[in-house]
């Protein structure tokens, strides 16, 4: 695993020697985040977010297990059991706010983690499998977050369930039957709530499993870095511990400050007031919106208003799922031999435009469906697909990248941290030697 100069685990205490020869768990941890894992020496703070995502998942699992001890997954009592948690359970308000805002924190760090991967080409060979598993984790997160949002059985919860499961009714012929099967009834009801609770409890452990595979796949080639240049020797790396445990520890402190600020000062900032109204199957809220982290995808769904060949409804659903499934093909849509966008002057700009486009989609997703917003959404949706299917393949084939540094160490010693080209870098070295 990783590089030949990785330090070996040498248990000193007889107990640890005894354990190491029977179940080498400490060795496993040492090789994952200890001195046994040499990491490029030039990682910037964008490399904090993987660890932060792991911390966020652990927070969600811990608070979720305790909340489940107080929650009732029955349609008649779910809403009141959440109020019971808020008012009667000791510290219940804290647990619930930590869990609800923890989901937002999880998505914030994961989105930054994904952007890091996009910008520095972390999805490129030899790290395609890490990226694919990452997209799987993202899909699992979306399913888990959606089902968790339904559990308090407020108005937004209920109508979210109605709308999201309505996607499946867009499938030709069998769609309605599939939806009724998923819901266990004709509309979201007791059966739906109970099975969503069961799955909401199960899926985080599936996510944890997928994360283990994600990290396992990462440790085969080792971490990418801001230059995108491969590690050439021991001088390019430092041991994970103590160098990045310390750096991640600092990042974790910042993360916890933001998290605590949300919980203690503005716990409902990212929620929707309608979810404090008990679910009413006979009345839709004036404006159904998902949680903020789904808004760009919701905008893509809403952008299809005309039938052509297929119904607008089916187009919307296909495009929404397609916008995520597209990410699976990213390693093959981008043929550029250079990983880091620091050395890709044209692609870098298109990536920034894509980010702006996703923010625009997020705005449209949360805004009302006025004529102007529908057109904005349609333009932004078109650009989203254009970026991945047309711009990216063309740019990666046509672009002339800047010269890469000869090594990570060279980039670091030039004091540029790998962000600028060096004069000594020659054209022949543009493509990382692999």
């Amino acid at each position, binding site marked *: 695993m990783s590089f030949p100069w990785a330090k070996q685990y040498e248990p000193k205490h007889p107990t640890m020697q005894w354990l190491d020869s029977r179940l080498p768990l400490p060795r496993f941890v040492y090789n994952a985040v200890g001195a046994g894992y040499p990491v490029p020496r030039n990682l910037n703070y964008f490399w904090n977010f993987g660890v932060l995502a792991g911390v966020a998942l652990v927070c969600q699992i811990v608070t979720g297990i305790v909340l489940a001890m107080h929650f009732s997954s029955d349609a008649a009592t779910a809403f009141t059991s959440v109020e019971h948690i808020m008012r009667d359970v000791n510290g219940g308000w804290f647990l619930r706010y930590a869990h609800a805002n923890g989901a937002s924190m999880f998505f914030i760090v994961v989105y930054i983690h994904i952007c890091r991967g996009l910008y520095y080409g972390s999805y490129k060979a030899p790290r395609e499998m890490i990226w694919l598993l990452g997209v799987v984790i993202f899909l699992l997160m979306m399913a888990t977050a959606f089902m968790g949002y339904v559990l308090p059985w407020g108005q937004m919860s209920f*109508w979210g369930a*109605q*709308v999201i*499961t*309505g*996607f499946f*009714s867009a499938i030709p012929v069998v769609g309605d039957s599939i939806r*009724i*099967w*998923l819901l*266990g*009834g*004709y*509309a979201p*009801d007791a*059966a739906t709530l109970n*099975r969503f609770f069961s799955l909401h409890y199960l899926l985080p452990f599936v996510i944890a499993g997928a994360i283990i595979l994600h990290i396992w796949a990462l440790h085969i080639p080792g971490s990418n870095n801001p230059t995108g240049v491969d590690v050439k020797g021991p001088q390019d790396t430092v041991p994970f511990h103590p160098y990045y445990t310390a750096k991640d520890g600092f990042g974790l402190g910042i993360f916890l400050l933001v998290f605590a600020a949300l919980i203690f000062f503005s716990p409902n900032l990212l929620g929707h007031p309608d979810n404090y109204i008990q679910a009413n*199957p*006979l*009345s*839709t809220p*004036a*404006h*159904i919106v998902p949680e903020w982290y789904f808004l760009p995808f919701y905008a893509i769904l*809403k952008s*299809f*208003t005309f*039938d052509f060949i297929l*119904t*607008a*409804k*089916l187009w*919307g659903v296909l495009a929404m799922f397609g916008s995520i499934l597209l990410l699976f093909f990213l390693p093959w849509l981008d043929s550029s031999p250079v990983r880091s966008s620091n050395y890709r002057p044209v692609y870098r700009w298109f990536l920034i435009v894509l980010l702006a486009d996703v923010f625009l989609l997020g705005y449209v997703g949360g805004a*009302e*469906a006025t004529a102007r917003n*529908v057109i904005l959404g349609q333009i932004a949706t078109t650009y989203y697909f254009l970026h991945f299917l047309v711009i990216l393949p063309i740019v990666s084939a046509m672009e002339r990248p800047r010269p890469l540094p000869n090594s990570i160490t060279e980039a670091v010693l030039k004091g540029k941290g790998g962000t600028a080209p060096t004069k000594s870098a020659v054209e022949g070295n543009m493509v990382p030697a692999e």
Partner: protein
Amino acid sequence: MATADTTLPAGAPHSADDVVADPRRRDYMQIGAVAFAGIGAGVIALPLINSMNPSADVLALSSTQVDLSAIQPGQSIKAEFRKQPLFVRNLTPAEIAAAGAVPADSLRDPQTLEERTKAGKTNWLVTLGVCTHLGCVPLGAGEGENKGPFGGYFCPCHGSAYDTAGRIRSGPAPLNLAVPEYEFTSDTAITVG
């Protein structure tokens, strides 16, 4: 590929090595075993999948009585049918005329008002109050609610507009508001489902 059947003379002694060297027989056993296990796993999965279908108590709610006597022309009510909203609307002659004035062929989901109501009871429009886009409850059944540009129902969530016959006229919804199965049990009462 040669098989034991063709290369070994009849009655030749079989050793353990012969069995291993006989790919066809071994493949047959393996494919058979895997197929058998696969079918078994599928059969075991069936009750698990089936348990997620609507349960008997959910299905038992499938019939609802609605009293129409208090609904004046131009009024509508929301009832509940299978845990979903049911719109019952007493159309005015003007609304019936508006629905009839539209050529059915020009619609996304072509249907006339007559096809959507009972003979001789054209003024009683009974539909599910479930937008055929993604299942929201459209406005227009309640007092003073926005009936949308076509005077029927309007779903503000994604902008689907239905006309006075509950037919989809604009927006992303693909179908007209569904008409459930129902019967007039008297002049002023219906049984839905």
